[in-house]
């Protein structure tokens, strides 16, 4: 009996080990092997699933149209995805990327969420010279670091500097004048801004960018609090109490989706911080709206792709079609990281066609000089390219304000900035109090 029980437990452990180890799937060797670095497990798995599903959608679309013509082969080849689960950790990312490069022999990599995770496995990518279209990490260090050769890295996500800079300018241009006017304060009174940032390259990079933007542009914004927190934190009550004591007019968290939802909920519900919260673009996901509910009313998100607000322009129809297809296939709305990865697969396909071969050097050269028309995210000059010295594509960013609809019990965004994309005016709620009290 005892032996049998031991055998059962060992068996269960082996099954568990199999589940833990089988998160990367193998594929037959044919066509372009595209490795997708996605957080399929761990705290970032919501985003990871979106990344992987979007890549699947793009690859299937390309393959359904007959694949990609490769001149050197004189025929069309298919895009074959290889999934690499980074487990939302640095170590998991290193393991997944190593396997994809050395075992699966991928030609190109895409995906890669969390700057901390991506920076950890980049050295492996650099050592093997594999082209990597990074669609999730936002720290500028992923292509600007000098300790490794980043010539094979291409950054298809707005860098934190750009995102934080846009948000800070919005605060100065739109929020500060509106708050000063509403509460009868002098027009030039500085706005008190509190920053709650993830203690990681992502968070610190954004904080530095906020400070640099304020200093470089001489904005009338005073930082009254800079509060770090550990990645994955769930209890923000003390941090928020500390922030509240410093009297902020606006709170700017540099946080992931699974962090900002409890942070904002606890701020409004438990701490009574009656102020407007900002959010970085990576939280613009249907789960964010669902998770926040009424607590997200009047909050602001800097964005480039939203499930519920599509900017005017050439991408409008593309976004509608992409969302329709995604919802039909996965019974869920696509998120921002997925949208960038969807484009990442198309970029890889375009590069393959341009290179006319799967030769690594030719693919690198092709990605570096590529000019792809904007697809589901609004790009500067309407084109996806990695023309600048850091291989960074340039996005058109916008700001959304979220409103709670009590009738439908839904939280939805409207674009409030910049003027050319604006759907409605920025509003200050009646419950808002300057100084957060």
């Amino acid at each position: 009996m005892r032996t049998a029980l031991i055998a059962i437990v060992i068996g269960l452990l082996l099954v568990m080990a199999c589940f833990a180890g089988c998160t990367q799937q193998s594929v037959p060797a044919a066509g372009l092997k595209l490795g997708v670095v996605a957080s399929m497990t761990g705290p970032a798995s919501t985003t990871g699933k979106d990344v992987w599903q979007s890549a699947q959608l793009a690859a299937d679309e390309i393959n359904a149209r007959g694949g990609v013509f490769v001149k050197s082969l004189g025929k069309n080849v298919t895009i074959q995805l290889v999934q690499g689960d980074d487990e939302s950790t640095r170590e998991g990312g290193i393991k997944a990327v190593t396997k994809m490069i050395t075992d699966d022999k991928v030609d190109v990599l895409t995906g890669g969420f969390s700057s901390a995770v991506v920076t950890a496995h980049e050295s492996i990518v650099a050592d093997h010279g594999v082209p990597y279209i990074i669609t999730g990490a936002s720290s500028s260090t992923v292509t600007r670091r000098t300790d490794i050769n980043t010539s094979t890295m291409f950054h298809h996500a707005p860098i934190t500097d750009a995102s934080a800079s846009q948000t800070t300018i919005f605060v100065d241009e739109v929020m500060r004048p509106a708050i000063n006017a509403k509460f009868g304060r002098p027009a030039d009174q500085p706005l008190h801004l509190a920053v709650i940032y993830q203690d990681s390259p992502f968070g610190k990079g954004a904080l530095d960018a906020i400070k640099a933007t304020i200093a470089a542009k001489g904005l009338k914004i005073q930082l009254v609090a800079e509060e770090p927190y550990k990645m994955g934190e769930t209890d923000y009550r003390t941090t928020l109490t500390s922030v509240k004591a410093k009297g902020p007019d606006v709170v700017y968290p540099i946080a992931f989706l699974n962090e900002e939802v409890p942070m904002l909920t606890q701020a409004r519900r438990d701490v009574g911080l009656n102020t407007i919260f900002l959010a970085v673009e990576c939280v613009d996901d249907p789960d964010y709206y669902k998770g926040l509910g009424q607590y997200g009313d009047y909050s602001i998100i800097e964005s480039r792709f939203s499930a519920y607000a599509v900017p005017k322009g050439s991408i409008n129809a593309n976004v509608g079609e992409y969302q329709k297809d995604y919802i039909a296939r996965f019974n869920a709305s696509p998120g921002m990281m997925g949208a960038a990865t969807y484009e990442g697969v198309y970029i890889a396909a375009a590069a393959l066609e341009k290179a006319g071969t799967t030769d690594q050097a030719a693919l690198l050269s092709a990605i570096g000089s590529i000019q792809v028309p904007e697809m589901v995210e609004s790009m500067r000059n309407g084109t996806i390219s990695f023309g600048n010295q850091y291989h960074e594509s340039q996005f058109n960013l916008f700001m959304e304000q979220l409103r709670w609809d009590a009738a439908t019990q839904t939280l939805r965004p409207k674009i409030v900035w910049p003027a050319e994309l604006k759907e409605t005016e920025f509003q200050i709620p009646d419950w808002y109090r300057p100084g957060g009290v």
Partner: protein
Amino acid sequence: MAIDVSTLLQILFWGLYAGCIYILLATGVNLIFGVMKTVNFAHGELLMIGAYVTWTLFSLTGLNPYLLLVATVPVLLLFGIAVQRLAFRPVLGSHKLNEIFLSIGLIYLFQNGAAMIWGGDYQSLRSPFESIAFDIGSFRLPLDYVIIIAVTVAILVGLQLLLRRTRLGLALRATSQNRKAAMLSGINVERMDMLAFGLGAALAGAAGTLWAVSGQVFDPYMGSVPAVKAFAIVILGGLGSIPGAIIGGLFYGVAESAATFTLGGAWKDAISFVVLIVVLVIRPTGLFGERGE
């Protein structure tokens, strides 16, 4: 910057709340260790499962999540008994390494199992009292946290009554103090092992319910950090000492809150272990180690 009294009281209050979760978790660890002399490294995963069980029942019934404790606690009690019977009993008494690796293996088993059943996405649930708070000056007292503290006290009082006023509690304490003597006096110590593990799991399940209802998100991988803190509390308070777990849990909650306020959130976890190291250097058996139950 001048810090007003109400801000300090608020920080203390958040520390007390965090301490409640730690106390329930650490008391469970201590109960299991006290009787079985086994450290269950997968204890944080029992908290996670408790949160998911409550969330599932809440999704199915829409009942008040505090009332669902009445269901979650027995479910975790039975689950704990099953885990002890199927996993721990076969290796009990063998090399300690077997127990350690078994419980480490259970961490992955529970995490992957939860991800298979409930998905890997984070979840949260809403308390029906979330909009009720009492503002005393700038000190804010949300009703949910008052309930959480009250529920924790009630559970601990109930546990003390069970241990001190019932024959079952007497048998548990006897097994904890001297396993052989307990066996010789007719106590079924293997049954006591199952009961202790079940009670420990039930306490973790209660902690999971309170975690979820307080507005904290949870996912299949969230158990590790609370578990590590629970072990630190147990060592701080003294292995096997329930009063030690209570004092240690409260101390940790308040210390974390104070560290976050004064040094920043990045120090929240670190300060607990700084305190632990200092206490162990001064008093290697922990605060209540020599008076263990």
